[in-house]
């Protein structure tokens, strides 16, 4: 059964090779042949990922040793299944969307090459089984998604790209801080369920290790837009083309979440961090980000910038759940990962379509858009409901669990302050998403229907939109999803606490 262990690499190598082929193979330069090839490669990746997740669960592969102490190791465990599937699915959807959308843009080869290679690195992050490999894939994800940011080559996009690069590198280097100390105080650098710290060695050095953990988490938090290193997100996401920004918000932020999960639950161990000043600090920061993100989004008028700020706050919901470190909160946050990826992906795609069709970037110009593009706006409305957390959509379920988890936790202030802030932020989310729908559908009296032109997009755009919107309401038929979430939570946190 030796061969099948190498199959783990397929989800990473396949998109990588396809990306390189798109970039360099002369045959694929022509648009007509490139589009089917891209679709084929995205679909192939999605399928291969699903197969690997199902078949090779629990297997690990020690690829090679970069240096005596640094080894590359990949494995499929519960987090991989959850995130890899989600990620590859989202990549497929936005890939399909981009077929149509890219007519609007130039130099497609570069876009698609890095689009595919970005997916490879994202899957690498999910599949990595020890700290150095995680760090490697993390860095290469930044580098490979960078060209997507400054794709439109405007001065603003280049500056945003450089800002994105430097912030992620800052975060990555802070994350790198963990490796040496774990090499000294931990038994191994591989992810071990429940943490690798060797109690004997860490006897007198808790303070130091806590600081290192805090730095690592804040470092990896940069990708998720956590407070200290969040400034790049509102700048980078809007300038990227729609499919890219959808992925950046939807999936790349989740890579940061994976890293933080690994650091907390698989490296330092939840018992080590629970109840310490690190946990309280992280909780306060995440709540601060939640509140700040939604208030900034509320005041922002440029459509995609508003959505970027909303990503900042939504991802902090997830982090809040993770930092609470109990099973219900974790369940809530994993649910919110699903909800946010699907919904935010959908919303960004809608926004992209609107801009693609009508070139209106400012929110205030969107009066009566519902009339021109009813289907798109319906999808937009449903997804925003999911984000706001109105019952039929998934957002409500995750926020519910998060609130329960926060109350269960015994923290003096944060246990009740958490739900309050979640509530306020939900209201603010509604405040900045729903007016678009309202103005879109009810333009008011003076809207002259005569010049109205139906601008509904082609199927390439509508199909992914509809799929995402329906999925965003997965809580209608929660059974499969809830099962997935529960056993993932059980796998991550089971048996550790309480």
């Amino acid at each position, binding site marked *: 059964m030796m061969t099948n262990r190498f199959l783990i690499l397929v989800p990473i190598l396949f998109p990588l090779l396809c990306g390189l082929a798109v970039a360099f193979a002369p045959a694929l330069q022509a648009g007509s042949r490139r589009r089917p090839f891209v679709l084929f490669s995205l679909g192939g990746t999605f399928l291969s990922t699903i197969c690997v997740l199902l078949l090779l669960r629990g297997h690990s592969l020690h690829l090679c040793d970069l240096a005596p102490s640094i080894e590359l190791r990949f494995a499929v465990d519960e987090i991989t299944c959850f995130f890899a599937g989600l990620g590859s699915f989202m990549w497929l959807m936005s890939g399909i969307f981009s077929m149509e959308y890219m007519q609007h843009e130039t130099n497609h080869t570069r876009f698609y090459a890095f689009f595919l290679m970005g997916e490879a690195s994202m899957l690498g992050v999910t599949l990595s089984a020890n700290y150095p490999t995680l760090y*490697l894939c993390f860095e290469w994800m930044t*580098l490979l998604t960078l060209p997507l940011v400054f794709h439109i080559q405007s001065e603003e996009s280049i500056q945003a*790209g*450089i800002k994105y690069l430097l912030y992620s590198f800052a975060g990555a280097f802070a994350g790198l801080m963990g490796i*040496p100390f774990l090499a000294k105080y931990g038994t191994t650098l591989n992810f071990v369920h429940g943490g690798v710290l060797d109690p004997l060695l860490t006897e007198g050095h808790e303070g130091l290790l806590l600081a290192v953990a805090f730095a690592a988490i804040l470092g990896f938090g940069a990708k998720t837009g956590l407070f200290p290193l969040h400034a790049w997100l509102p700048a980078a996401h809007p300038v990227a083309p729609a499919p890219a920004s959808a992925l950046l918000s939807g999936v790349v932020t989740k890579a940061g979440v994976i890293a933080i999960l690994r650091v907390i639950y698989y490296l330092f161990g939840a018992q080590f961090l629970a109840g310490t000043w690190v946990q309280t600090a992280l909780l306060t920061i995440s709540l601060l980000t939640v509140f700040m993100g939604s208030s900034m989004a509320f005041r922002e008028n440029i459509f995609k910038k508003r959505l970027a700020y909303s990503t900042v706050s939504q991802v902090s919901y997830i982090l809040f759940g993770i930092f609470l470190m109990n099973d219900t909160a974790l369940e809530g946050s994993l649910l919110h990962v699903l909800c946010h990826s699907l919904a935010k992906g959908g919303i960004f795609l809608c926004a992209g379509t609107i801009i693609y069709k009508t070139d209106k970037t400012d929110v205030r110009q969107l009066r009566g858009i519902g009339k021109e593009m009813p289907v798109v706006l319906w999808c937009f409305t449903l997804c925003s409901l999911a984000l706001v957390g109105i019952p039929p959509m998934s957002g409500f379920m995750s926020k519910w669990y998060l609130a329960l988890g926060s109350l269960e936790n015994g923290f003096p202030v944060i246990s009740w302050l958490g739900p309050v802030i979640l509530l306020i932020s939900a209201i603010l989310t509604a405040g900045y998403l729903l007016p678009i729908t309202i103005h879109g559908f009810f333009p008011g009296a003076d809207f002259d229907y005569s010049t109205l032109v139906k601008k509904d997009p082609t199927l390439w755009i509508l199909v992914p939109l509809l799929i995402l919107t329906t999925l965003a309401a997965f809580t209608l038929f929660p059974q499969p999803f809830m099962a997935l979430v529960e056993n993932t939570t059980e796998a991550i946190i089971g048996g550790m606490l309480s």
Partner: protein
Amino acid sequence: MKLFLILPILLPMAAGALSAWLPLPSPKKRDGFIACAVILNSLLILLLILLKPSGILTLLHLTDSIVLSLRLDGLSVVFLGLIGFLWPLASFYAFEYMEHEENLPRFFAFYTMSYGITAGVALSANLITMYFFYELLTLVTVPLVAHEEDHRAMRAARKYILYSIGGAALSFVGIMMLYSRAGAKDYIFGGFAPVGEVDSYLLIAYLLTFIGFGVKAAIFPLHGWLPSAGVAPTPVTALLHAVAVVKSGVFASIRSTWFAFGPELLFGTWAQHAALFLSAFTILFGSAMALREQHWKRRLAYSTVSNLSYILFGSCLMTSAGLSAALSHMLFHGIMKITLFFCAGTVLCKTGREYVPQTEGLGRKMPLTFATYLIAGLALTGTPLLPGYISKTNLLTAAAQLNDPYALFGIVSLLLSALLTAAYLLPMSVRAYIVPEGSSLSFTEKDRDPGLRMLIPFGILILAMVIFGVHSGPLMDALSTLVHG
């Protein structure tokens, strides 16, 4: 067998001297002569490394106890390997680059002679011989720095002389202090200074040698000469200030720390703390200055200042892990930095652009050069799959081993410096390729990729980087075995 030790020193010096005097008809012939001399010497070094002749070859008795002698041991193999590998590349690059410069015979004479003397520094068997070659290296490289003989070059040369001779004098006093206490002995792994109780006399001696050799390794207060020596032609800055001269400073410092004073004596003492603090601070200072500097080659020079202190920091940790990390960074930095200098030099030689803001959009015209520059930049920043990451991780792990506040400060400064390196290297490459539509950029037809003779070194260097980046296991094992003598 021992006699072979003198050859790598004498051969290039003889070749250099001859090339200046022999009435070679055409520059091409002279280039050929120099090329074969350099290659021959590199092969000789390779032979020496493989054969590893043991025993000490004494050259001269200065006084009864002080003797000039040569020996090949683990550490010198590393340094010899580095210069043996890089010097032919640099020479090839120099042939192409120096075509339009004048008084070349003198340039190539001194250029080749410095090869021999750097080999001398590597092969020396005790502190005084190393000091002896160290001083000669200053003398031989002064004409190279002052090659253009214009006002700027002379000023840079004068500053170079002042710092180097000042540093050498300091280290000489340190060496003599050590000799007065421990007797004029040869190198032994683990040092020959009397361990006993911690006496501040030897610690002061160590600090003097550290600062003395630190001048060439561009330690913070005494780094001034390296950026201003950027005025020299690129082969000089690339080879000498990225590899030979500064590396001999670092090599000398490692030798004096590990083979003369010995880690047992210095471990945990205030001297080690001072050395750690100084190198850690230089790491930060160098990168910060590099970020602020707009002149391209001075920026790379400041980056060398910071990277050299990586190596010093590693060696000052006084643990074998630290030393092997330092040695690995010495090798990798040599390769990475020489590539960066070559790219900068090619752009300067082809387009005459010296300042970073002027390189915007040049990537489209010189894709290969800037591709190499991007890869080397990524390597230096420490992105995985490239050598920078490996040596940086080793350094961090080694520093984390000893729970010492200064080592912690070192770790923080290493990471901050990595960020600053990213800040001063990567945006440049981004802006070179990606140019906003509206901007009006004037390009002459000269702005295109250099000839084949320059591209070959680029190719070889990138290959070396990727190989070391991905598969540096055997190299690291070799280093750790060397470290144990």
